[in-house]
């Protein structure tokens, strides 16, 4: 009995210690966003590496999810002669929910693992220690440019995903004799300005989650190549779960706020 309690105690201690360190790293990184030096070059490199290079997978994700969304909606709406609403349904679903979540999950898989692997390799090859000895604040040098890049890139990628998905929805709708005007005119009936805010706020939060989680797991990597692999896996799983959990709470907040 005592052994079991001790084991549970140890697990909880490790969990809460990790949780505390996660939030400490997040807090310290956010504070450093506004402190010099700003590492503009590093930010530009990260924005290109994390943001621009994810554009293609976001376009593909948006296109096919928009198409499948329209296809399923049209099948349901046709018996009620309500196919003209398909544009609005695709748009509201994509802008508020699927666009931010799908784009973020794709970026978490692609970029989160890359950040973790890069930082993890730097840790196990003592490059991070070398930077500290050279007088560098590693959060400012390594975490902040990645966080800023994600905070800017993910909302932009989500907007692209949303636009492409609405276009994908139209491609399917065209097969059901819905003209572009009819398709677009359905949008204002389903959406309000607040939905657009929700659609941009979510990826901003998700971008922070991806960057902070990846930096946290990367900078806490232990061991050699196996440790780097384990950290990369952990970063993707953790950030994906956190994205889905936070998505619910942000949606709930907007529902309450909307009244």
């Amino acid at each position, binding site marked *: 009995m005592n052994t079991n309690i001790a084991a549970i105690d140890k697990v909880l201690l490790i969990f809460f210690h990790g949780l505390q360190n996660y939030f400490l790293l997040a807090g310290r990184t956010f504070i450093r966003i506004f402190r010099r*030096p700003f590492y503009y070059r590093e930010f530009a490199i990260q924005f290109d590496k994390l943001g621009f290079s994810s554009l293609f997978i976001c376009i593909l994700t948006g296109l096919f999810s928009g198409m499948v969304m329209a296809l399923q909606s049209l099948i349901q709406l046709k018996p009620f002669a309500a196919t003209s609403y398909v544009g609005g349904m695709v748009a509201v679903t994509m802008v508020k929910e699927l666009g931010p979540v799908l784009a973020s999950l794709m970026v978490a898989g692609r970029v989160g693992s890359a950040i973790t692997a890069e930082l993890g390799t730097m840790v196990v*090859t*003592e*490059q991070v*220690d*070398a*930077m*500290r*000895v*050279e*007088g*560098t*604040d590693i959060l400012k040098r390594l975490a902040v440019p990645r966080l800023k890049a994600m905070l800017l890139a993910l909302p932009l990628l989500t907007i692209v995903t949303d636009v492409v998905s609405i276009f994908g929805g139209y491609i399917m709708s065209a097969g059901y004799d819905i003209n572009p005007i009819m398709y677009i005119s359905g949008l204002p009936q389903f959406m309000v300005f607040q939905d657009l805010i929700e659609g941009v706020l979510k990826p901003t939060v998700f971008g922070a989650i991806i960057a902070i989680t990846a930096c946290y797991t990367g900078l806490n990597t232990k061991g050699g190549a196996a440790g780097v692999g384990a950290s990369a896996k952990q970063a993707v799983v953790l950030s994906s779960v956190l994205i889905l959990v936070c998505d619910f709470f942000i949606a709930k907040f907007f529902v309450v706020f909307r009244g």
Partner: protein
Amino acid sequence: MTSSDSIRMENLSYSIGGRKILEGFDFHLERGVNRTILGVSGAGKTTILKLLLGLLEPDSGAVFIGDLRITGLAESSFMQQRKRIAIVFQGGALFDSMTVGENVGYRLFEEGRLSDGEIVEIVREKLSFVGVEAALNLYPSELSGGMKKRVAIARALAADPDYIFFDEPTTGLDPIGVYNICNLMQRLQAEGKTTLMVTHDLATAFATSQRFTFLHEARMLFEGSEEEMKGSTIPEVREFLEPTTRSLFI
């Protein structure tokens, strides 16, 4: 010699996952006295260097750089003191996303006190000192093991430190590479730098140091000169200096 001219550890203990790496460890590195810490692999030699630099936090005891007790302080509080120390890591720890030139000039670029032209001048001078000036625009992945170590030494020299730590500087090098590194260390000492090396390579240790510390099972077992070490009757030290055929098979 005042305490401001030294780096020291007092009654320091450090463990990882319940395993004791150091226990009640005292160590003193005086300016101008080149030292080597010897011990078998896994004895905790590299850990000592990291503790002295404040990269690791001890379980108990304290580390002093000069008069400042750095244990328990935030890293930003002892950055100035730590700038007196540079380290050459075992694998070089060169930043692989930067060129050799950017690696060597890293601290100077970070500090932002000098113009780019002045920094490039210093970088060329340091690379020339270690004999790899032709590698200025290469990336670390394009260098051999020996070249990486020499570039790491150039990087350590760029900020003109008083102390230079070497973590297994000759491991994995061919005899010519070992000779070159020993030669570089002797030239640095002649220029007034104090070196602290951790190694299990006795030839390099005796060629470059005046004082020796032998580490065994988390404790300092011996401290003294080369003659004292060679004349030591401590069985573990004797075993380390003259490994018997028996030790290969037990």
